[in-house]
């Protein structure tokens, strides 16, 4: 069966040696099919208080190509955001996710849009994986009307309620009890869905996390706590912040799984396992062993607390996009050129979105006073000089 598959893809790729005029037809021809493929994860899972799932992950060419495309898009988007920030088109905070893309795409592949995701401030890629558009990302980063929060949130406050993405939170650790609350509401509403509450190794020591975990375990909430361990809480390495950096074990009575977060298929397998577990047995912790290439934020070069060798080493050995590229090439699901073309296409998409976002206007001054309340009751609000600027809240 593998041989016939190879033959089919070979004939496909030969017809693609001609240059293509439309990106869309390129996608269609290497979009792959759903024929099952089994791949082993890079490393086995390590478990705490539970039996680890199998290393063999079921996938298919279509999924792998989608992983590649989506991660390439996210990578390109974050790098473009870096440039926009340096050009002063993005202000304030900007926390980039490049390196961690596999967590976002792997998680999304295991769940539906009825499951909830909540994360902290490193949220651009998670927003995109939940269905957010590039225009919404760049416009929000630049504080424009076309942004997902109409320019009023900024980098740390992306939301997409219609696909159950609840932000985007600036207070370290706060999103974990909030996520357990989403799980509570899902159980209360009998929706048979789960919530993934993402947090970093820095937030993993927050007291409120353990308070929320205790409540989740007592009440059997379908909450999955996902520690995106990129090994540095801002400038503080995990071994300097946590007496026990085995975050998947920190739940004590709550089971946990340690996952190679740079392997999208391992992430997918772990999330699938976690969803099944949470619906039956309550909370579980997933520790994603991942890495961020950028510093904590745009004001952090990221090289004062770690060596450049370490960063380039991870890029060489563990980059999530390269892993999928190698997988696709070794299974002959696409050629190198086809994958390069995808990357070119994705780059163009990002550039187009940025151009469009730059055209989007800044919010109207009247927007200062909108959405303070859902129901404003006609009360008055004031500007800096209340005798000069007043508004009635709708």
């Amino acid at each position, binding site marked *: 069966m593998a041989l016939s598959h190879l033959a089919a893809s070979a004939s496909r790729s030969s017809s693609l040696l001609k240059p293509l005029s439309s990106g869309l037809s390129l996608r269609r021809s290497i979009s792959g099919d759903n024929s099952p493929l089994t791949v082993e994860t890079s490393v086995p899972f390590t478990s705490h208080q539970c039996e680890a799932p199998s290393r063999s992950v079921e996938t298919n060419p279509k999924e792998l190509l989608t992983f590649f495309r989506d991660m390439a898009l996210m990578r390109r988007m974050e790098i473009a955001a870096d440039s926009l920030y340096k050009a002063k088109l993005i202000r304030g905070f900007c926390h980039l996710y490049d390196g961690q893309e596999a967590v976002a795409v792997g998680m999304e592949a295991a769940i539906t849009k009825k499951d*909830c995701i*909540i994360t902290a401030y490193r949220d651009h890629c998670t927003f995109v994986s939940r269905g957010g558009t590039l225009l919404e990302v760049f416009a929000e980063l630049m504080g424009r009307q076309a942004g997902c*929060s*109409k*320019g*009023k*949130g900024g980098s740390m*406050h992306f*939301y*997409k*309620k219609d696909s159950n993405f*609840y*932000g*985007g*939170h*600036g*207070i370290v650790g*706060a999103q*974990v*009890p*909030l*996520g*357990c*609350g*989403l*799980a*509570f*509401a*899902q159980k*209360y*509403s009998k929706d048979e869905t789960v919530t993934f509450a993402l947090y970093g190794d820095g937030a993993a020591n927050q*007291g*409120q996390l*353990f*308070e*929320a975990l*205790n*409540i989740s375990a*007592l*009440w059997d909430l379908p909450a999955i706590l996902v520690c995106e361990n990129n090994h540095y809480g801002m400038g503080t390495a995990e071994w300097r912040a946590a007496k026990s950096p085995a975050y998947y074990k920190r739940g004590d009575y709550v089971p946990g799984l340690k996952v190679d977060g740079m392997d999208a298929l391992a992430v997918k397998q772990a999330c699938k396992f976690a969803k099944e577990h949470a619906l039956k047995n309550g909370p579980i912790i997933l520790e994603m062993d991942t890495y961020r290439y950028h510093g904590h934020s745009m004001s952090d070069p990221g090289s004062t607390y770690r060596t450049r060798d370490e960063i380039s080493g991870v890029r060489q050995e563990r980059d999530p996009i390269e892993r999928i590229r190698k997988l696709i090439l070794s299974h002959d699901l696409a050629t190198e050129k086809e994958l390069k073309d995808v990357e070119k296409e994705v780059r163009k998409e990002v550039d187009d979105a940025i151009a469009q976002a730059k055209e989007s206007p800044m919010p109207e001054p009247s927007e200062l006073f*909108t*959405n*303070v*309340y*859902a*129901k404003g*009751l006609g*009360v*008055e*609000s004031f500007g800096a000089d*209340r*005798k000069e600027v007043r508004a009635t809240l709708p």
Partner: protein
Amino acid sequence: MLGIVRQKMLEQSLKKIPPAVSVLRSYSSAAKQMTIRDALNSALDEEMSADSKVFLMGEEVGEYQGAYKITKGLLDKYGPERVLDTPITEAGFTGVAVGAAYYGVKPVVEFMTFNFSMQAIDHIINSAAKTNYMSSGQISVPIVFRGPNGAAAGVGAQHSQCYAAWYASCPGLKVLAPYSSEDARGLLKAAIRDPDPVVFLENELLYGESFPVSDEVLDSSFCLPIGKAKIERKGKDVTIAAYSKMVGYALKAAETLEKDGIDAEVINLRSIRPLDRSMINASVRKTSRLVTVEEAFPQHGVGAEICASIVEESFAYLDAPVERIAGADVPMPYAANLERMAVPQVEDIVRAAKRTCYRSVS
């Protein structure tokens, strides 16, 4: 406006005035009486019955029947899925409640006292109050935070603070402070039905007090508007604005002032945020004098905000400086005599009102 003290006709001071609530209470009248406790309990019961999305969460709200028995009987009636006893972890359970509200269910969170809400204040402000704005209207937060606020009796410094000013300074929150049973029922129902986060400040010492309630108030559809104050006693010489327990004190002060020929208008604020600036200003434009009363610490308080509003909107109408009566600017002491000095008493309100009338205080 020119500082001229208006003289009262003796006959006016002898004229019969509408009885204050405390006077009414001493008559066994046909009007039904209801304690604040029952008012709150019945409001919770009716709103839970009307909307299956409403649920209660807090320490001892279930099996213990409520630390102050406000939630008595509700666990039996609605079951453990809708009346949830939490561990003593305010930050955790408040975050859980706010997250549930993001999803669209309607939590009513009880803080055993608002002193403990400080452990959860990040969730009240950053997770609840600001989210509708930051998400540009995508995520509203239909949550109520309720519990006793302010001074009780002999509970000491860590258990006696009033948080009205802190919460009311934050855009995105609504802050309510009921006084009577009508207030308790109407405002709690309004809070639960409101799609925004509401901080509902009760008072432990008022829980056992009875107030008359009409049939309209007892009806399950009864609701009071948020953002509107109430004139508890009409008057024309001085406005006394207060909230919660201090409304009762203001009414007693008005009775005393009446004997001295000063006709006080008592405003029950009901809503600290939004503050009913137009009613307070309208009253002061009529009386030309204002005394604000609160049990809370004085600096940066509700009285200060009201005073600023009057100075901004009705300066020309003032015949005297605005007077502020507030809790003493010290942590609450335990000894009974010191505690008495640390909170306003009726005579403080009377004295301040007389000062605005340029009467000598005797």
